[in-house]
């Protein structure tokens, strides 16, 4: 059975169609969900893609969390529905408190777009079905605010509960504990700064993102 994935579009989102294309290329179905609607249209999984929701004004994700769709995503996530936040989507998920911590400006105070090596640290989440812990992936990053921070207590908890999903091999942005992605306690909500949809074709230099999106498609 093919999986229908809802891809959320806020004003200012810009990776929605790339995400849709990547899902299509892997045999999934995708539905663009408008931020102002509250219906998730019975999708099986939700992706909040990258971009600049509401221009990133005030603070990345700070306005997006008030969009009507977020209330539905919140309930969907609480019921165990798979939710992936990519880049700006990760920022939105932390603002919406579906994931702990926050993403602040890169330590180098510059926007960074580059290929990164990341390690798949924990596979006990919706992205890990086709992977094993320790897999090393090449997936690009593209962000100004990707520097993950959280309290020592939260970090402790993330580590103990095996909720650090990805770590950078060469930390590009100053993230605490080299964190590139985390999940919630149940493993159904994942946030990551790298863009798996940008690593889905040999023509684009990497196909390492496909296992992640495929995993979501059978979730």
């Amino acid at each position, binding site marked *: 059975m093919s999986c229908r994935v809802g891809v959320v579009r806020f*004003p*200012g989102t810009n990776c929605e*169609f790339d995400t849709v294309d990547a899902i*299509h290329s892997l045999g999934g179905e995708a539905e663009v969900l408008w931020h102002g609607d509250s219906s998730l249209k019975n999708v099986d999984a939700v992706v909040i893609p990258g971009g*600049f929701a509401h221009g990133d004004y005030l603070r990345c994700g700070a306005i997006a969390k008030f969009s009507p769709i977020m209330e539905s995503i919140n309930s969907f996530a609480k019921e165990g529905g798979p939710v992936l936040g990519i880049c700006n989507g990760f920022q939105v998920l932390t603002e919406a408190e579906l994931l702990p911590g926050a993403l602040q400006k890169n330590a180098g*105070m*510059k926007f960074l*777009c580059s290929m990164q090596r990341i390690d798949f640290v924990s596979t006990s989440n919706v992205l890990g079905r086709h992977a094993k812990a320790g897999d090393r992936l090449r997936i690009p990053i593209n962000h100004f605010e990707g520097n993950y921070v959280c309290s020592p207590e939260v970090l402790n908890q993330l580590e103990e509960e095996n909720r650090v999903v990805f770590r950078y091999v060469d930390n590009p942005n100053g993230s605490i504990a080299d964190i590139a992605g985390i999940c919630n306690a149940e493993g159904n909500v994942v946030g990551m700064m790298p863009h798996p949809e940008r690593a889905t074709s040999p023509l684009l230099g990497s196909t390492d993102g496909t296992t992640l999106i495929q995993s979501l498609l059978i979730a």
Partner: protein
Amino acid sequence: MSPAPEDASVHRALGLSDDEYQRIHGLLDRHPNHLELAMYSVMWSEHCSYKSSKIHLKRLPTEAPWVLVGPGENAGVIDVGDDIAVAIRIESHNHPSAIEPYQGAATGVGGILRDIFTMGARPIAVMDPLRFGPLDDPRSRWIAEGVVSGVSGYGNSVGVPTVGGEIVFDETYKGNPLVNVLAMGVLPSERLVLGQASGIGNLAVLLGASTGRDGIGGVSVLASAGFGESSEDADKRPSVQVGDPFEEKRLLEACLELLDEGLVTGIQDLGGAGITCATSETASRGGAGMDVDVTAIHAREENMEPVELMTSESQERMLAIVEPKDLTRVIEISSRWEIEASVIGRVTDNGQLRVLNGFDGEVLASLPASTLHDDAPEYDRPLAPPRDLTERRSKDASQGSADCVNDLLSLLRDPAWVYSQYDHQLFLNTVVGPGNDGTLLRLRHPRTGEETGRGIALSTDGNHRWCHVDPRQGTAMIVAEAVMNIACVGAYPLAVVNCLNFGNPEHPEVMWQLSEAVDGMTEACIAFNAPVVGGNVSLYNETNAVDIAPTPVVGVIGMHPSLSVPPPVIGLPTDASLLVLGQVPEADVSMAGTQWAWEIGGCKDGTLPTFDLAQAVRTAAFIADAVQRQRLVAVHDVGEGGLAVAAAEMAIDSGVGAQINYHNDHISMFNESGGRVLAVVQDELLDAFMTDASEHEVPVREIGRTGGSSLTFGAEITVPLNDLENACRNELPEALGRGTISA
């Protein structure tokens, strides 16, 4: 209407000459009032009217069967098959960026994107050729850092990838940087729209940001005059507009939806000269007139004067021509995207552009719409080569003390510091991104996203050193270089856009440079069968009456007909033959115009090396074909810094060295004789490749073998890869601030 201005100081302050005032008087058969005068002053500015350059631009070749829209519209459009058209344009935002680097560059990006979606195309790529003063000058570093941040801040947020460009530092741009921006978009061929107003009674709807007092006189005060005292220049800061990429993003999506639903009969962006330009251009293109109600314009602040509303260059605005029956739907779509929409005008049949205080109110201005464009003055300004041209050309640029190892290290520069700040991957098209010869994007259908199995290649190139020595041949050489760059990613050229950055057109030498450059471009474009489909002229690039070195910049767009695997890399493989293809330089080839001569030897003059354009055409076609047929393992264009720099870049890219047999003096290492590439072919295919090349009359020489951890030239010169890498990668981060925490 208000009374006519009484003294000449009024039109002079607006940048109009006394002759131009008389011309307006003649056209109207009366004295213009202040508002009318202001409207003529912005539309007849150098920036909007091309009054000094038009006479020369007419010589450029502009036609080919695949050209759908040539110069003169908002963007050039070419047919690329499969019912897909590509819109492309290049522009400068030099003067705003000199005054206010971040906003100057940001609004440069915003402005050109609107030019692309005005044609019905979704912008999918930006390129930014940038030129600044030297890195050891603090102000130039401040400008460079601000401009790159501005392109990054606006381009990333508006959601269009910046996929390539150039970065050059030279004394000539101290005080007057060059910030050029190229944008490209794709559209379903049938959606092509032109910026024209037709259909009497149709409505002109102003979409997007409110109109404020920013950017008033941008085209006249700022873009059409040089720089002098810094205190005066600081006064120009209010003429720079402020950009809002989020507004632009919503405006873009809203406009594309309007176009998709067929709700507009014409659409026009608001750039230089604001509402005056948009209303008069759409009206005169459509052979119509327009009534504009200034009270209907949604304004940012209260009590704005009509003249301010009509000439403001506030960003993120579009003018859509809409049939009355579609207005409700237009407003619906606009409000979904949180875009303001106001009906500010009506298309009329009398050819007049009338500015009204309320549609039934007082007439504030009334002038024939076409006179703002078609009747703009056209100058055949005096031109003359420099008086000492013969003496300059007799100089020997190879003199100066050469230390080949250190010279090589000083000529290397990795632009990664710049492009890592740009999103260059959005839309999943970037097969070859910035930091390479040409950029290569997958061509997918704009409506369905379906792959066509083909690619679009882009390259922007300029070289002020070559053009200073010889603007005609130098310009032909930059066209050839751009074509060679896209050949390295497997593409043949389709069209050219140009951004002609020159000094003060009132200096005869500058006009001579411009004229020569146009002739050189014409020769090269004809040879490569790549017509010019659009361009921009930026004049008055001068500081304290010193003109910049002539800097025409070209953007070449090309087609890769069968894109199934990525093209060869730049990096060297181990244990293979290194070949140089293309024109063979004379033994005592001239060093004039080389980076070595300018930056190390200290000579800026001389005579350029002989350039064989026909040979460059053959070489480029042969390379593109070899790349398409996957016969090359690695390939890299030879440009600035010559063979040695090209070989070093290849070595750095993969961490594999090379032993180059006979190039061991500064002339053979650093000469910039045009039309050459370095390439690597698998050993077992080498003989067949050589035979094929000779049949196509492309000279090939084997100059060395790859491998090892250093680059050697002859027996004496050895440079460890580590040294090359450090010199290359550290320069920009050290000068401009590191963008990462690593190292």
